[in-house]
């Protein structure tokens, strides 16, 4: 039954292994144990500290990133499971030194106070518009409920989202 043993024989299954990730369009290799979350891999191994660790238990949304274009929680994702998948973080949102329109709208609308939840809010907000669930404030609130803002900047966050939605001529 050798066919389903993935680790090399001399290597213990729980030891660190090389994982090839595609992060923000770049191929990255890192050595991590299976228990390392995608969030820790990004922050501690790849120096991408934009994604934030709030609760580390899938409650607050501060660690929201995209895997294969879908918003997910990096704290509940194991880094090893992302091999062969595309990971996008807040650092991958801007292009050519220009803020993404959602980032600019957050600045324009003062959509944060302490700023800790902001990267997760923005990653969620951009995904939200792509998903098409931003018809009105009620729908925005519902589909953004996985991102907690302890400073309660919610009205400004919704205003930023509305702006980007309307500028894009979306729903």
């Amino acid at each position, binding site marked *: 039954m050798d066919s389903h043993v993935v680790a090399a024989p001399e290597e213990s299954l729980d030891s660190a292994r090389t994982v090839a990730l595609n992060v923000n369009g770049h191929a990255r290799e890192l050595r991590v144990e299976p228990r390392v979350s995608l969030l820790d891999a990004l922050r501690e191994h790849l120096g991408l500290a934009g994604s934030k660790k709030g609760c580390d238990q899938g409650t607050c949304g501060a660690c929201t990133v995209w895997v294969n274009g879908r918003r997910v929680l990096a704290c509940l994702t194991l880094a090893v*499971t992302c091999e062969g998948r595309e990971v996008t973080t807040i650092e991958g949102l801007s292009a050519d030194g220009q803020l993404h329109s959602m980032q600019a709208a957050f600045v324009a609308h003062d959509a944060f106070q302490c700023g800790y939840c902001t990267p997760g809010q923005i990653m*969620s907000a951009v995904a939200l518009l792509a998903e098409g669930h931003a018809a009105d404030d009620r729908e925005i609130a519902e589909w953004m409920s996985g991102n907690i803002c302890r400073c309660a900047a919610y009205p400004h966050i919704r205003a930023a989202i509305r702006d980007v939605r309307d500028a894009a001529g979306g729903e």
Partner: protein
Amino acid sequence: MRPFGYARVTDADSAIAMVQESRDGAFLAGGTTEVDLVRQNVLRPALLVDINDLPLNRVEELPSGGLRIGALARMSDVAQAAGVVERFPMISQALLQGASAQLRNMASMGGNLCQRVRCSYFRDVTSPCNKRDPGSGCAALSGFNRGHAILGTSDKCIATHPSDVAVALVALDAVVHTRGSRGERAIPIDDFFLLPGDTPEQEHPLEHGELITAIEIPATPIAHQSVYLKFRDRESYEFALVSVAAALRVADGVVAEVRLALGGVGTKPWRARRAERSLLGQPAQEASFAKAARQELSMATPRPLNSFKVELAQRAIVRALTTLTNGDAR
């Protein structure tokens, strides 16, 4: 987090064999409960077998009018699948009222059925918990049990099953398809969830290494107009205090067919069979609904902190059935 082994496989037989060969091995799908509980030391797997590459993510409309949902289909995809929205709106509604958009993108349907309870004593390794540590006692019995169950409880465990979509699936007589070392089997969903009794650590009849492959829902014409109502402490991203999945057919003013299941009140997703029996043949009016709800809750075993659920559940049932008779549902 404790160290564990990891393997990623692309076929079901390898996955099943690997978990079986490792005494503390487990499947890893969306990981939304599992990774959290491993980090909290509640689960201590030696090996996680990543099944996300298995081809089990399809949502298939069956010619009969039923539906076959692959075990690895994600909650978000199932919620918006045309066949689900058209044939079983209560499933779509239940999914969309559960968790958050991020979690729904991650969590699989098979994993949803296997998710563990949210009882804070289960998740706190310093508390006694018969489910986590059989024989250690139940801290919830005399502890903070406002969110706990009032139906199907035992003196060993009163934790509620947290799933929303499972409530709809129980109302619809879904069938859980599995594959293990002894081949495939089909388990009626009401038998898939076990009452805690004296063995709360045993939550479902799966053997070690038995894999859920699909959830099948039989054609149910009355479900084309059905509702999932959820009542909770906040409007979004919260578990149910009480929820109701309901479908109803009225003919000549009387209840001809009805499906009713409750969430947030039972130790398992609760099919309200007493209420269903009470309703059949009765006038489709609030008085019949209230009577049926009363009968269903007559067996409730509330605790001081959750006794409000007895009344809340009855009102929720009446609200759901009234919504359907008024034609406000879709």
